[in-house]
């Protein structure tokens, strides 16, 4: 059916890059020693892990001892929240501040902390472009607040948060600050020191490393309860035999990412803007969701088309070889529309008709042109069979 493969879902996941794959290969069968073993053969495994730790640390201006490898972005998020709250509970710190537009790895962890442990959680609202107001963070902090966790950039609409300002407020108020940078770390230059970040989650599969490897940056001196209990790996802070090849892959991917980031992002953000303006010009009543320019992830396009439902558009796009994503209720397991789009104030029917395209290394300029060629037709055809579109046109006539 589809000969074309126009992958526009780099936010969902990315392919392992050939260089990363090559760096990983020796660590499956050739160099396989358990890093914890005493014999000299295992030295190579230990050295590989320490090299990767250095590569990741360098990418964010952190110290290697501040990088802890985990199994995923989700685990890093779970650890940061649960570990911090559990550790500070005995000091009477039982309050967590986060936002309404976090990834479920944060939101469902916060719900768990509230439901099972009785911690208080404040979910900060966002403005119509998906921005958290730092003053809201300041006002939400009380003497019970243990942690503020605000994502660096949103995975659905791409809005980048005022992280430095939020970090500053947290320092001033002596509250710990965690950020989920799973998306941001793949696209932005991040300096954890400059931005006042205490903890930061990253994930390999968003940056051309494999799925199932992640890391948590924990600033020196910050204590949190362990999340994985067991052996003494990762300085006795994260148990389980290290995912050697995965760790090597993450380190390599980070180093490569940094060397090409500026060029990649200049190209990708110009294509992003070409797609956004193309969509707004060619499709009547199309609306951009999220912020613009430098406040938006370079690779993210999220638009709503009143009168049509996103899953149908995804299948129409798929038929033409384009992979994308939607915030429609119809395509979620819960049949609820995207919590992010609702938090931005979108009506249900606008969330229904949303599409997300996320660009990356697989994107070419031909893909950009092809998308702009087929999308207007697809939307027009589905609108023609929609009673909602008919009503909308009548009410706008």
């Amino acid at each position, binding site marked *: 059916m589809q000969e074309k493969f126009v992958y526009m879902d780099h936010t969902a996941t990315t392919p392992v890059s050939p260089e990363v794959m090559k760096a990983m290969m020796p660590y499956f069968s050739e160099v396989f020693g358990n890093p914890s073993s005493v014999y000299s053969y295992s030295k190579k495994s230990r050295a590989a892990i320490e090299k990767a730790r250095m590569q990741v640390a360098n990418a964010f201006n952190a110290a290697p001892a501040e990088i802890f490898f985990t199994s995923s972005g989700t685990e890093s998020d779970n650890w940061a929240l649960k570990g911090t709250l559990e550790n500070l509970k005995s000091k009477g710190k039982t309050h967590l501040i986060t936002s309404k537009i976090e990834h479920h790895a944060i939101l469902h962890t916060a719900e768990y902390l509230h439901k099972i442990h009785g911690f208080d959680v404040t979910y900060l609202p966002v403005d119509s472009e998906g921005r958290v107001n730092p003053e809201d963070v300041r006002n939400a902090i009380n003497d019970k607040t243990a942690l503020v966790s605000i994502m660096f950039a949103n995975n659905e609409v791409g809005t980048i948060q005022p992280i430095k300002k939020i970090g500053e407020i947290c320092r001033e108020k002596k509250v710990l600050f965690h950020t989920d940078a799973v998306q941001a770390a793949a696209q932005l230059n991040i300096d954890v020191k400059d931005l006042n970040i205490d903890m930061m989650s990253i994930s390999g599969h968003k940056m051309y490393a494999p799925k199932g490897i992640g890391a948590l940056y924990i600033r020196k001196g910050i204590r949190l309860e362990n999340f994985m209990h067991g052996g003494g790996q990762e300085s006795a802070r994260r148990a389980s035999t290290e995912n050697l090849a995965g760790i090597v892959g993450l380190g390599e991917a980070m180093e490569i990412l940094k060397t090409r980031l500026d060029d990649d992002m200049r190209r990708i953000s110009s294509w992003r803007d070409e797609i956004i303006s193309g969509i707004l010009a060619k499709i009547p009543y199309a609306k951009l969701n999220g912020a613009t320019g430098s406040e938006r992830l370079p690779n993210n396009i999220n638009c709503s088309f009143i009168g049509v*439902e996103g899953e*149908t558009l995804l*299948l129409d796009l798929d038929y033409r070889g384009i992979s994308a994503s939607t915030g429609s209720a*119809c395509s979620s397991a819960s049949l609820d529309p995207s919590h992010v789009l609702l938090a931005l104030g979108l009506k249900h029917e606008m969330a229904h008709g949303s599409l997300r395209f996320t660009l990356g290394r697989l994107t070419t300029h031909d893909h950009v042109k092809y998308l702009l060629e087929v999308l207007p037709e697809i939307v027009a055809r589905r609108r023609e069979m*929609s*009673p909602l579109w008919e009503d909308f046109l009548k009410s706008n006539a």
Partner: protein
Amino acid sequence: MALDYSQKVMDHFMNPRNVGEISNADGVGEAGNPKCGDIMKIYLKVNDETKIIEDVKFKTFGCASAIASSSMATEMIKGKTVQEAWDLTNSAVAEALDGLPPIKMHCSVLAEEAIHTALNDYRAKHGMDVIPIEHHED
């Protein structure tokens, strides 16, 4: 969420039959889906003497399963009497489509209810009692 639709569903979704409106319809009905907020509107042209549905058109705002169910359901009631059309169940529609994913069964209920609403509109216009519609989830 990945979806594996049958070939029949994909066929009716990609090439839906009976899309559109009938300007002087004998019965018009609209049903909304409380689960995800989708809407189906159906238009019937009924022969007064034979009570046979001679033409039927639909418009649907909803997922692929909703569009395919609308298309299939309209095919199934075309040429049938209003009584026969009333008896069409959503599970018969789903079966004719070679099945729907469990989470998508409710989309076929939309088609059943829109048809019932349109038939009641026809009945009301022709001095007949309106039949209560039984709502169900799937």
